[in-house]
């Protein structure tokens, strides 16, 4: 489980505010309000927000959007696989909601350095809530094309209330794109 209640550095708050801004952008375009920024050496180098509705691709989460921005940039300038991995190992992700299993898995494949998130995601969180992909690295790798995954440091509960209130706003206005719920969405209440 990610650690809560630690002393939060002012930097972290500042970057999380940027992530929350991204989430608000998502909210404005009727997406589930989750946003993130990726920071390297004290600078924001990429940002992303949910685009699942717009793209009708349910995997276009904020994290994936931001990662794709970076990868595209780096591939354009011709970085090799090793160099890209090196770059990611210096990156810190700030995201308003705990990365889902898919995103957490992606982050560990990329070998990101640290992840700070706002609210936990008790439905499909991959950083402690359901699975703990941030702390389980696989040693046996690279044989027959399997990916190595690295563990990364993960801290949750940063400005969680802001993230939750955004989500609540969204779900109160109703999510027109949500599939028919198997059960009523009481988990937010």
């Amino acid at each position, binding site marked *: 489980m990610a650690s809560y209640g630690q002393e939060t550095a002012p930097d972290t708050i500042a970057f999380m505010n940027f992530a929350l801004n991204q989430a608000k952008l998502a909210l404005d375009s009727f997406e589930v309000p989750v946003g993130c920024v990726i920071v390297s050496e004290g600078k924001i180098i990429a940002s992303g927000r949910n685009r*699942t509705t717009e*793209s*009708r*691709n*349910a*995997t276009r*989460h904020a994290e*994936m959007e931001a*990662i794709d921005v970076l*990868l595209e940039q780096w*591939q354009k300038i011709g970085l090799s*696989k090793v160099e*890209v991995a090196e770059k990611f190992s210096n990156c810190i992700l700030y995201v308003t909601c705990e990365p*889902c*299993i*898919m995103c*957490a*898995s*992606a982050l560990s*494949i*990329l070998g990101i350095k640290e992840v700070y998130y706002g609210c936990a995601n*008790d*439905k*499909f969180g*991959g950083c402690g*809530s*359901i*699975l703990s*992909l941030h702390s389980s690295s*696989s040693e*046996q*790798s690279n*044989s*027959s*094309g*399997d*990916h190595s*995954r690295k563990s990364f440091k993960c801290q949750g509960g940063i400005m969680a209330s802001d993230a939750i209130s955004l989500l609540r706003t969204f779900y109160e206005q109703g999510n*027109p*794109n*949500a*599939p*028919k*719920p*198997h059960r009523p969405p009481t988990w937010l209440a």
Partner: protein
Amino acid sequence: MYIEALQTKKDVVKKQPTKDNVILIRPYSRSRLLATHELLHGGDTDIGSVEAKARSVERPISAREQNPNDDDEEGRGGRVSEEIRIRIRIRILNHRNCAPCGCQLAHAYRKYHNTNALNKIVPLENLGYVKRVRKKCQDGGKNELSVMLCLASEQGELDGVPNDVLELFKEYQLSTFVAKLVNAALIVDPSIKQIPTSSISLHPLRHAAMVAIGHSAARDRLLYPDSGHSGAEMVDYMVPTSTGLPSKRQKINLTQVAYFACLWFLDCSWDVPTALVFIDYYYLKYVFGKGEVKISGLQRISTKSLMQECAMGLVHQRVKRIFYALPNPNAGALGSVHRLEGERSLNHRYAVFRVLLPEEMHKDETLIQSSTSENFRIKI
């Protein structure tokens, strides 16, 4: 339960039905071969060369020459039904060396038979599109035929069977069984890095599943720009049973067919060769018109068990069924390391099937490249 591959085209026999036709089975495979090839490689394939290849890998098909009018093609789609049970099975397509696309279709495909005649003798209401006669190759080269004759009832195998069908049982000494009608599925040969990857840049996260989700979403937007139709709805989408009967023949535009069902990709992430197929019955419906196809959402097939990233992506996209061939002991999320399909907190769950590959394929890591085997069973 068995899964049948490629329920998309059929050869129709234009002969007056006689009682003999019911179990008289003739193989027609060439046009199926072509259709399958087109399906996989787009409509602009050089058919002549494929035909040549097809002949070289297939026995000459005498029945075809006996019935030169058998060229009619009729679209058929998969369909789910609670009550109907038939036998289904899977085949793999292996293509390696055939011109012009660098592949070879090494297998014969399922033979379509005398469904129309059967429909007149023993009609199955509202299920006219279902292929009712099937041939199953068994070990030792023997073939087993099965004919779907009637609905199975809940009580017992022979309860509620019409009398004339019972007579058929006796007359031909048929052994009966109950099978379940499942949607069509499709396996594609992965292996090959030299097919259309040239334009795709390397991306550490672009696993086949993720690419496929992206493509299916893109195609979704293209096909249904206004409907707001999404993968999520796809799962729930059901066409009301129509009165469409087999007499209604539809010519299928092959390029459409080629386009429709399978988006197939190579995994363009770093060093993982995997391929997979998405089948979208919503679009089948779109192509074939009303009543032909019942929909049950996206399904996918891959050769390797998915890792968490892909498996979760497919949860997000509300995929309905997953078939995979090889477990992935290091990172598999469908039973190898994690079991996402059994994770109770998730808001969607799919059914996962493992396809059992023949022995010799296990030995070969490059597997599907060298596969020539054609029988696949699905273990449930």
